[in-house]
């Protein structure tokens, strides 16, 4: 009898504990530099789509890329969804509203610190300890650092999915497409070098496989 009770308790403990987290964490970086700030309406659509795909206990944060992006101050909105479905719906609406307000009043930044934003994203998602970690980079991937900013560092991206969205071609890319291809290749290399998974989605109508 005692053995049976012990075995049942052990089974329950095994069943209850030791499970890997199943939730998702998404961190989205929005490039607000120069003319790319005009693309932010598209980013708002992606954010709404992402919101509709996320569920209870998931985490979502949206941050801007500006001169120095390795900062919590650049996080525009962040949310860890509640356990209750009704609360999740409320949080989603509020988040969407915050993003709409940001897009309506955004000011473009003179520099583009993508690496700093990526570092901040990794730090944030590691802290949240989510099951799946996804970083969305809504940018043309052209990094333009201000003087004195050191970003020549390896970022530990093992277990992260990094997805570059709407990587627009610059005027110089049109003149020499190798620049564009090199840029993409460089970022791919940086991500995959430390164990990350790299993807590019330029067709925003096909977001089904985003998460």
């Amino acid at each position, binding site marked *: 009898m005692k053995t049976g009770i012990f075995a049942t308790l052990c089974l329950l403990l095994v*069943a209850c504990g030791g499970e890997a987290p*199943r939730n998702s964490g998404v961190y989205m970086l929005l490039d607000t530099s120069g003319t790319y700030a005009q693309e932010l309406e598209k980013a708002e659509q992606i954010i709404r*789509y992402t919101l*509709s795909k996320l*569920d*209870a206990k998931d985490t979502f944060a949206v941050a801007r890329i500006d001169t120095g992006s390795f900062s919590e101050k650049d996080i525009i909105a962040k949310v860890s969804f509640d*356990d*209750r*479905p009704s609360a999740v*719906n409320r949080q989603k609406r509020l988040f969407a509203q915050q993003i709409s307000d940001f897009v309506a009043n955004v000011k473009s930044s003179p520099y583009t610190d993508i690496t700093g934003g990526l570092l901040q994203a990794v730090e944030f998602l590691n802290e949240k300890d989510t099951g799946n970690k996804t970083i969305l980079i809504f940018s043309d991937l052209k990094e333009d650092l201000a003087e004195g900013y050191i970003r020549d560092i390896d970022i530990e991206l093992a277990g992260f999915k990094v997805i570059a969205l709407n990587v627009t071609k610059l005027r110089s890319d049109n003149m020499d497409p190798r620049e564009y291809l090199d840029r993409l290749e460089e970022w791919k290399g940086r991500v995959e070098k430390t164990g990350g998974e790299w993807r590019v989605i330029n067709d925003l109508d096909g977001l089904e496989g985003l998460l």
Partner: protein
Amino acid sequence: MEFMLGITPWPIASAVLWIILITAALYLIRSTAHKAIQATAHALHRNFRIASKAVSRSEAGLAVRNRDVLLAAGREAKERIIEREFDRINESVCKDLGKYSSLHRSLSESIGRIEKDHDDAIDVPPDPPGWVKAVQAVAELDSKEGRGQVGDILSDIHKSLIKAHKDAMTAYHEASAKRHQLLRHMRPEWRLIQQKLAEVGKNVESLLSRSVTIDRLMQEYEDIVHGQDRAVSVLSSSSLVNFFVSAFVLVIAIGGATINFSLIARPMAEMVGGTNFIGGYKMADIAALVIILVEISMGLFLMESLRITRLFPVISALPDKTRERMVYITFSILFLLASVEAGLAYMREVLLHDELATSAILRGDIGATATGEYMWITTAAQMGMGFILPFALTFVAIPLETFVHSLRTVIGLAAISLLRTLALTLRLLGNIFLYLGTLLRQIYDLPLFVPLWLEERVARNAEGGAVTGRVRQ
């Protein structure tokens, strides 16, 4: 192979030599080999036969046990039916014959009243007319005193006669009218008696028909008690029918429980969280399932307390008062759970609307957030289903009881069939091995046809020589 063909410089010669050697060796150990083959075949045959017999014995034992179980179940079921029939007769007797004293009194009173009315209605003969004596007096007067005053007297007599006649007729009419009135009063009494007697006749007929049913049931019961094959066959077939019918109803009940589950699983996430898991299953789903299972359990206890089912002997054996309390308690819990379910069903609808509205906002389709005018119908329907389904699931107890009882028989029958097939297979295998032994011996002798032929020739010659010798002697 090369080694074998290389024992002589000529491979063919080597091969022939090997064949001769092998044949010789096989011939030399032929007897032992035959015995070994035979022993193995016989051993296998015997073992399979033993196994087959053991399985057959198990099958027979199981069949006896199954028969006992079937008869016991049939006896119990028949006892319940007979008990209910007796209960009905008891109710009928209590209801109808309980009123017998009042019926008897009513009939006696009616008969008494009829008798009295009848006595009162007897036709009374009218009094003899008074004028006969008067005429006699006049006649006597006429002979003694003369006829002077006769005319006056006759005139008076005439008047008196007319008056008396009138009075007599009036009295007679009055008496007749009274008699007719009394006879009219008797009519409803007759009808009342007829009605009462018809009622009594109907009740007696009902009792008679019930007694016929009880006779039939008692006969079946006796057949079961005596363990007659016919009774076993009837019980077996009815058990199979019960099994399939109850299984069908249980499948329907499972469908109802699934709908019930879908009604409350989603809103349950509001109470226990939507992302907690136990062993790979959502906590909300488990909670919803537990609620449904508790409802079914309460339904079982309710049915058991009402003595509709008899799955738990402990509940059936409880004192009536405790049982009644249990009925009230289980019904109250069931009612509360049904109310909770109705509330959860409402919550589900609210959550669904909220989710749809959020999705519409995220899509940028603000117009889609407006709620439909007739959405209250689905809300009300869901609430109604949430409230009714727990009570409907209560009745699962009846098919469940039938299913459990018939399952024993069905499993027994299936096991008997399985054992029978196994015994047959083992028996067949035993025979196959026996004949396989014979076949192997024949196959063994096949390459030894030359030495065997020679052996036969030698034996024949030897036999021929012996016969010749005997003849010579």
